[in-house]
């Protein structure tokens, strides 16, 4: 049992590093969106490497967004693509349509940080700032020291003193 646990921990430590290494060697990009990490296909050579262009398949995989006639949509949420600048968002290369996720982030005023082929997309301002008008405490799920996960919402019905501290 202990051996299995040690192996699991080793896999948890090694797998992300191996994935990142694999991505770097294959030209694939790593996209962290809504705190979820996805590997996406290498870029089309004709598209600017300064932005993150992804296939529509990868767009859905990495972000959950899909292109519809009304715009870039996820569930009930749709963001229209500015007609005058549609080429900044969409580009057809051969049979594949690419979407500029960096431009979309600029449109939504999402913060973006990049290290080579690793892209981190922060929350849209309206999502980040939602609690300052609703006063609803942002929910999260985190583990205790035994690895058991707890959500803030698990404590609904009780008063919560949410207190942060650190070892440093």
């Amino acid at each position, binding site marked *: 049992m202990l051996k299995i646990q040690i192996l699991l921990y080793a896999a948890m430590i090694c797998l992300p590093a191996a994935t990142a290494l694999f991505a770097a060697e294959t030209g694939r990009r790593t996209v962290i969106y809504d705190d979820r990490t996805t590997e996406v296909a290498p870029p089309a050579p004709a598209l600017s490497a300064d932005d993150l262009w992804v296939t529509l398949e990868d767009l859905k995989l990495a972000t959950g967004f899909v292109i519809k006639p009304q715009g870039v949509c996820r569930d009930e949420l749709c963001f229209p693509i500015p007609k005058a600048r549609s080429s900044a968002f969409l580009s057809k290369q051969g049979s594949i349509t690419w979407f500029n996720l960096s431009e979309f982030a600029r449109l939504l005023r999402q913060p973006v940080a990049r290290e080579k082929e*690793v892209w981190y997309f922060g929350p849209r*301002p309206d999502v980040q*700032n939602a*609690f300052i008008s609703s006063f609803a405490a942002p929910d999260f799920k985190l583990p205790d020291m035994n690895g058991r996960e*707890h959500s803030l919402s698990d404590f609904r019905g009780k008063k919560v003193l*949410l207190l*942060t*501290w*650190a070892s440093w």
Partner: protein
Amino acid sequence: MAQDTGGVKDAGKWIEAAKPEYTVLIDTQHLVTRLYDMVNVPTAVWINEKGRIVRPNEVAYVDNRFKGMHGIEASEYLDAIRDWAAKGEQSAFAMSEKELKERLAPQNPDWALAAAEFALGEYLYHNGQGEASIRHYKEAQRLNPESWNYKRQAWALSDAERDYGTSFMKEVQKLNGKPYYTPRQLKKEKEQK
């Protein structure tokens, strides 16, 4: 919520020593810091039974072990917590909607970008790219100089003097009289009610 990139390795011994009867979670990505726009520890938020914030971020010492450094008395905060626990929304310390609106402000774009840079630094650190992570920790510190979390966590992960050219004590000295924690308005609010 331990804001500790090092996870159980760094936070575990403190949790074991505390023998807590309450839930203690470990936040290796500093997610709570980002969600609630925090800049230091200890910081607390009071949340009622419906999941609604009744007191936003504020310094939250519950003992006086570091009072000599920051001058914040813990007993008044503990009394306020007990008052809220007993009286709920009727407590003088549970903020009204008007008070919350006055206290809360949208995150400024530089701080939002700082959070993204710090989160990328965390990803890189956890994926064996420590050297690259330093660049992004530094950028987060530059964009949000108010965040001691970004500074102290990053320094703790490497040699602060070598990689950041500074140390905690040097940075505290640079405050030059400016408070290390944003002053808390607990007593003033209580007196006004």
